[in-house]
């Protein structure tokens, strides 16, 4: 089982890719995905309060269990100018 982790905008300048796949088990949580990305790309700034951690483009709790083929992304806060 895998989930897809997407990178947007400025994040891609660091990751050099639009997305990666992360293997999961039935107990993998969103926080595990966050740590996985932090380890893989230490230059990405994913500090608490700096980005919105989402599953399938909706904000989710970090202890949420991930399901196969879901999409994790780190969105900036957009206020609409």
């Amino acid at each position, binding site marked *: 089982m895998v989930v897809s982790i*997407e990178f947007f*905008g*400025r994040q891609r300048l660091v990751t050099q890719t639009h997305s990666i796949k992360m293997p999961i088990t039935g107990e993998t949580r969103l926080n595990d995905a966050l740590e996985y990305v932090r380890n893989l790309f230490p230059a990405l700034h994913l*500090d608490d*309060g*700096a980005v919105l951690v989402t599953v399938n483009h*909706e904000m989710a709790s970090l202890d949420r269990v991930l399901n196969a083929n879901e999409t994790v992304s780190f969105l900036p806060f*957009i*206020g*609409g100018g």
Partner: protein
Amino acid sequence: MPRPSLLKAHVKHYNSNLMKILKQIKYEPARVVGGYTDRILRIDLGKSDIHVQELSPDFKHKYIGGRGYALKLIWDGTTRETRYDSPDNILVMASGPLGNEPGFPGTGKFIVGTISPLTDTFIDSNVGGHFGPLLKLAGFDALAVSGISQKDVVVLVDGDARTISIAAASVYDEDTDEGALSFGQQLLQDANGGELSDAMAAVTAGIGAHNSRFGIVNSLFFDRRRKRIRSKQAGRGGTGTVMRAKGLRGIVVRSSLPRANGNNAVDKEGVRREGSKLKEVVSKCDSQQLNLGAWGTTGLSEFMDKLHIFPINNYQYGQSPESKNLFAQVFLERYFSKKIPDGCYYGCNLACSKGAENVELTRGPRKGTKVNIDGPEYETVGAVSCMGIFDPQFVMEYNWYCDEYGLDTISTGVTIGFFMECFQRGFLTADDVGYELTFGNIEAADRLLHEIARGKGFGKVAGQGVARGKKWMAQRYASRNGASEEAALAEISKFGMEVKGLEFSMYISKESLAQQGGYGFALKGPQHDEAWLIFIDQVHKELPTLEHKANALKWFPLIRTWFNATGLCKLPWIDVRNPEAAKTAEPVKNLPTLAYYVGYFNATTGSNKKLEDLLDDSERLYVLQKLINLRQGKGTRPHDQIPLRAMGPAYLNEYQFRAEYYDNWLKEQLGDGKLPGSPEERHKLLLEKRAEAYQQLCDIVYEKKGFLSNAIPKRETVEKFGLMDEQADQLLKKFGM
């Protein structure tokens, strides 16, 4: 001094003697104290009259500045019969008490407010640049122009020479005379012995503003870094059309007074302290978040596409594989030639005003010319996607031509997109237009843009905007097909993206009930500067109930109104999230950053207000604007209704584009999970549910705002804010209250 290549051909026309002064007064510029001069410059172009109006201290306490001043002048100085081209219509330009402070980010904003040619009620548009700050340094909190000049004129407000003049507009060559940018640059040079200076700024309106209802006011200033004239736009609602209707081609303002501490703040150290805090947050966070400093607002395109919010093909689809051609990196790599801080006013370290130099036009009457382009902003990119076009070069050229002609990129794109959909659905024919007006057809879109600007061909129809375009289309279709005009109008209104006469800004609101309200209740029409709640609603899921949505639809318009009254840009607050906000109960309000703004206001003006007090001040302005809408016939519940397209997939093709998503949404709504059998039935049921939810939202939002269920403000609401003058009393009586 290097001259932009655009104007090389025009240099020979320079001659300061071309400025024939028709009327001039001497004046003593008032000193700015605590952010205010307590003066308004009043000019009646019909009578060639110039006078300085002194304000009582109460005026600023009650109406704050910016939008507040414009509202009060329009309320007192116009009537229900006033239209955009009436002599008594007033064109107001006003900064605010917090405008003009290089120690604090985003203080170059000013408001252009008037009675709109699109909505027939109050419209205002906020715009950056140096004009607002320089007007204040030249001695005025606001400039109010009434009357109509029989000949084209310009106004010169010279704080250095201490003169205010009305002069005949100079005549150059056709390109310069038609162009807001070209004319403005020439005007600034003529007014300053041929040299460009950052002690001067101008506002201008081009030929497109003369020939359409959605003309803009360009705000021009000299950028010392780029060594050229740059422009920002007061884009919404046809303020430039009003300017041209008055025979006013441009206004120049000059002041050589220092900008630093230009407001003579009561507590200078307090201003410095609050400004430093905000600058630190912007400096630390923007590059990790939206990266506006590098990409400008074009960075939004990718997120809007990903979240199905990009307004493709007249808001039919929110996403396309072709959208990537319009993402920020494309503009950064191909066009944003200088990677330098690009603030539209001194001291702003967000610096999001991106631009490009020497871009060669490949289309239109200026084909082959190399021009300097300011932008594109996200809204312009979105407007091009609205026409089904995904060509970045076209975005740049569309941007420049709209600015030069003086056309709103949003209304132009939405109107063209609307007629493209009329063509798609068989209402409009090639015989009507003169060519095939299909989505994605760059040649057709480009041709129609120039026709709108010149008031030629089908541009005469399209230049009237969507609201009038809907009626024209229904009449035309009905007479051609022997059909009911009423039925045709009802069908066309499903996808005619306007409310109150103003075209929507560039976000699909179908999946956010809160944003449907953000557009529908917006007093000026569907522009997102009252409330942009899509992200909070759709992604954060922080507005789960009608009560939550209604609270947001009260709070955000009030705080955003305050920004528009004080001369401030909202971006450093709303688009740069302070990490401390995560520790608060409502992170989306970004309250830690707002605290800096409250501190800045108090330090500048010597007040001791809390955020709640500022929101109360804003609510007074909000209710006053509501009264103007009521007077102008745009203030009741039917005027807050939005097109079907804004609340859901208006047609089956849109439903099918995201069938799985919509089916899941319906299942959640129905509870038992049993869906109707056919896609047609599901689509119909979904739209019924959406329409029902919107009406429920109306009820609760009106209650929160102190209005009756017909959207008319209660007497006690008007009285609470000290607005019950004779006019308000008579107006409410007329509505049976």
